[in-house]
């Protein structure tokens, strides 16, 4: 009887411990609660009610199909429906970039690293504002080296097709799969109707729930939600007085910048003595998210 009592006590005592199963160390960095890390003033366009962190994986070179760059982005959603999608450490980039400069010039051995993190080469320095300045409008901001650009477009028509009975659980939310097309790529996304926000990473939106995961059919771009937070925080823009353009023009400008950008950098005078890595840089691959 005493043994039975002991066993019962042991089982009862272990129940609270049982509840802890399934957790293990969190490896992702916590997003700072404010963006004003470098002390610079920025315009705050709204305040978020929730924030979703996404891990982005991108294949910069389609000939090196197992080489992915990884970075973390955040989608800030305001009660007004406005949202901002940008890289978490985008605001730190300027200071990091500046730290490589010696007497105003970038050292030779840092050239390649500098080029790898050069703003505007991909989406790293972009801001995607949805429902801004008006409903169903996207404001896209990015830069090519020294130039800042902005354009506005309507919400893309992805012509989503929801795939019946396609379920997946992401961050404990049941998700359904939908397939849509935009700018030459087919996107396969998983959205949850438990979070009734018609939004998602990058320009992806238009479904009856928040998109928690997205991948393009070529297997070159991936977004996966890694954290959802209910948080009130300012939504600042990093751009001041950018040059207005159109989406089509910006795509051409960026392609020219990525493929021939080295010439722009040399002509700017910021970087000198590029001979060693110039040829390699000139062969930089260009794999855009939007083909047209």
């Amino acid at each position: 009887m005493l043994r039975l009592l002991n066993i019962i006590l042991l089982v009862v005592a272990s129940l609270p411990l049982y509840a802890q199963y399934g957790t293990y160390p969190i490896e992702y960095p916590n997003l700072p609660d404010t963006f004003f890390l470098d002390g610079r003033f920025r315009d705050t366009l709204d305040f978020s009610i929730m924030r979703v962190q996404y891990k982005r994986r991108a294949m910069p070179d389609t000939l090196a199909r197992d080489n992915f760059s990884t970075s973390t982005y955040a989608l800030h959603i305001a009660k007004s429906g406005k949202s901002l999608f940008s890289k978490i450490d985008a605001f730190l980039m300027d200071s990091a970039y500046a730290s490589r400069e010696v007497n105003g010039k970038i050292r030779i051995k840092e050239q390649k690293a500098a080029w790898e993190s050069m703003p505007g080469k991909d989406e790293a320095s972009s801001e995607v504002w949805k429902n801004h300045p008006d409903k169903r409008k996207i404001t896209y901001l990015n830069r090519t080296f020294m130039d800042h650009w902005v354009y506005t477009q309507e919400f893309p028509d992805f012509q989503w097709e929801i795939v019946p009975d396609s379920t997946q659980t992401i961050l404990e939310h049941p998700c359904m799969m939908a397939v849509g097309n935009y700018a030459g790529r087919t996107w396969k996304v998983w959205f949850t109707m438990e979070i009734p926000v018609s939004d998602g990473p990058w320009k992806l939106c238009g479904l009856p729930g928040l998109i928690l995961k997205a991948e393009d059919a070529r297997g070159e771009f991936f977004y996966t939600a890694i954290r959802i937070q209910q948080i009130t925080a300012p939504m600042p823009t990093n751009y001041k007085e950018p040059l207005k353009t159109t989406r089509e023009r910006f795509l051409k400008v960026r392609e020219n910048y990525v493929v021939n950008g080295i010439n722009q950098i040399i002509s700017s005078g910021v970087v000198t003595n590029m001979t060693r890595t110039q040829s390699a840089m000139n062969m930089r691959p260009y794999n855009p998210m939007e083909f047209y």
Partner: protein
Amino acid sequence: MKKLLFTLLFLCGTLTSWAQVSIQGRITQKGESSAVADVVVTATDKKGARVYGYGFSDDQGKYNLTFKMTGDTVYVAYKLMGYKTVQRTFRNVSQTADIQLEPDAIKLKEVIVRQPKIEAYGDTISYNVNAIKQEGDDHIIDVIKRLPGIEVSAAGTIRYMGKNISKFYIEGMDMLDGRYSIATNSIPTDMVQNVQVLENHQDKRVLKGKVSTDRAAMNIKLKKDVKLKPVGKATLGAGASTDELKGMADIVGLMVSDKGQRMLTLKANNTGQLLQNETMDLSESLSSITAELEGTPSSLLTPTLGTAPQAVEDYTHFNTSFLGTYNRLLKLGDVDQLKFNLFYRDEKDNTQHESNTIYGVNEDNQLVVSRIHDLTQHGKQGNAQIDFTRNAENRYLDEKLTLDGFWNTSRTDLSGTDVFHEKFHTPYAKVENKVDYTWSAGKTNYTYKSLIGYQRQPEDAVFTEADGAYLNQDRNRERFYITNELSQPLGWGYHLLTLNYGATMGLDKQESELKGSMNRYEDMAGRYDWHGNRYELSFTPSYSFSNMDSKGFSFSASVPLSGIWFKYSGHIPAKEKFSYISLKPSVSFSWRPVRRLLLSLRGNYSRAPQNWERYSSAFYLTNSTNLQQGAQDLNVNERKQGTFSVDYRNPYLELFSRLSLIYIHQKSNLLSGYDFLGTTLVHVYFPKDNTREQFMGTLNVNKLFNFWRSNVNLTLGYNKYGIDYYQAGKVGHRSVEGGNVMLHWDMKPLAWLGVSLNGMSVFSHIRTRNTIWLHRLQGTFSFNLSKKFVVMTDAELSMNQLEPSHYKRFTLLNMTARYKAGKNLNLDLDCYNLTNSHQYVLRTLDGVNQYDDIYLLRPRQILLKVSFSY
């Protein structure tokens, strides 16, 4: 007429139900008339699993939901963050519905932030080491063994979805080549963030996007805080067994940066852990035996071999082992790298066991042999390798020079039914140079491969019986070989034609003298010297078509054609010159209907029409009971093989599975079996036509579950073959069936309890006779008594159905108490072999069942270990 009217009415009704339905209205806030914009309106089935249509309310709160469906009822939900969800049920007809939403606090589900256990992006699958490892997984190989889709053979070869990995990288750099066991057995688990599998990995940049491959590579991603600085781990231990002092040291130093890598390992122990597998070269060229059965899971290679789970075999050695390695990779710019690899191993091993072996189980003619084995082996091996690689966009060059020396002495003392002593001294020295050069020339790429080497093996074998009769063989072998290959792929669209030209020359020289006083070998004594030259020219046209990306199919056909010439002199009983043409065509077809599913069908045929095997009458004594006449390899005259496999891998569901069916039909010229020489049973290879037919099937399913954080790996294997056999002077034909069920289940049912179960049931069935079963369940339990204190223990439950040794038994094996004194400091108290146990092995060797009941002498020992990371 009524019927027609009824039909028309029915059709109209049906049409109505298929027509587009519109539900529209205005959404306002409850208690106010203000419009609510951006409300998500969805029309679904009752469970919400099927969405018929969806829409959003505009700034005036108006919505218009249009959809098509066949049912009578539709469930419409009105959702917006900050408002209570409203759900309405409507009939499947167009109508108007105004809705009022009630404000509510925003409540997001409390999300547990955690890294996925498995992630997939593109051709990369990334396993999260933290999520899969178990307590006690000290080295990364312990975790790799648990990864779904991956299996590790006893020798350390890593396979992904049934195929050997082609490369092993640490942070994208291949420092160790085929000797990656040095890294997998040395790198501490705590240093690794992810283990990645790179599917369809083409390591040559010049061929990327031009020549596809279905092989995968493995990449170890280290944690950020262990990169760009020297890191390491040292484990030192001391203790005692019943009759001697015990000690161990395991030290690894690692430095990984963008400019290169270096790794130093030092290991020594006399606690029973052998180190010989850690320096084995697992690269493709040396694993031809498994490559032949490529696509076959390792558990199928010997499906009826009832081996014990790993922990039972550990700590049965009385050893003194030392291994030191130094590996250096230097990046010389963007495309060049230079590697140095050095290792030295000195290992003395003694194993003592008693065995009762029943030959010919379940046959009338059985022979029971009892033996007491005392095996001692002392090997010293030194190896140095230098490797230069240029991996540029337009050319690839890999130049590798290897020096290898091995001094090995082994001694076996046998008592019981046989009394025998044998001693081998088998050193060898080898120097080898490999070149792999691929260059781009216009629209095509050429690949040239060259291998040139020289090896020398002076061997000495002495056998002594109880009465003093002895047998001695001195043998000296020298071999020089050179192989050159040139291949040229010609591609257009999805088509690829590859032409491969090869030339090989092998020069062999052997001097052998067999002498002694044993009567049964009397006729065989004498000198056997021969020289042999072998020349081969080969031409292999291969064609492949592939439109496979995420979907599609591929087809390939290859027709290797070789002309082979031999010229021998010396002790040659048959002709001195002979030649033959070898043809080994193969076809394969793969279809990927969806990204995660791959169906493959492959057929191979080979035929070597000349029976050239018995060119030498020399006898080779490979151990006291193995006598071999002629060349060592089984000569397969004709072989047909068909393989069908279905791979399903779904990283999102954390599910990896593989079904493999293999059929082999082969004719060869050597029978293997048992014979009696006097009173001694001898395993012989008998020159006789031999037909073998074999069917093998394996299903492997590996899935991770959130329930108890489970990792379940289930393997079912079945094997049936018909074989010609030789036993006791008679040739016969026999049909044998065998199979196994293996279950590996890691789980964490409670926060303080981790369990790892290994279950295995093996059966063997011989025609007209009973089925013999062996069951074994082994468990490892870890008890996290507090954050700092863990106790781990192994136990085993086993059952054997075979008479006369029928038994059921529970055995406690090892126990470890670990105290985590700090982030970088652990103290372990290890107790090995708490209870000694027998080990039972059922083997089916070329159709002859053999049952071994073995008692392995295992030292009970206790060891105190300190581990320190820096």
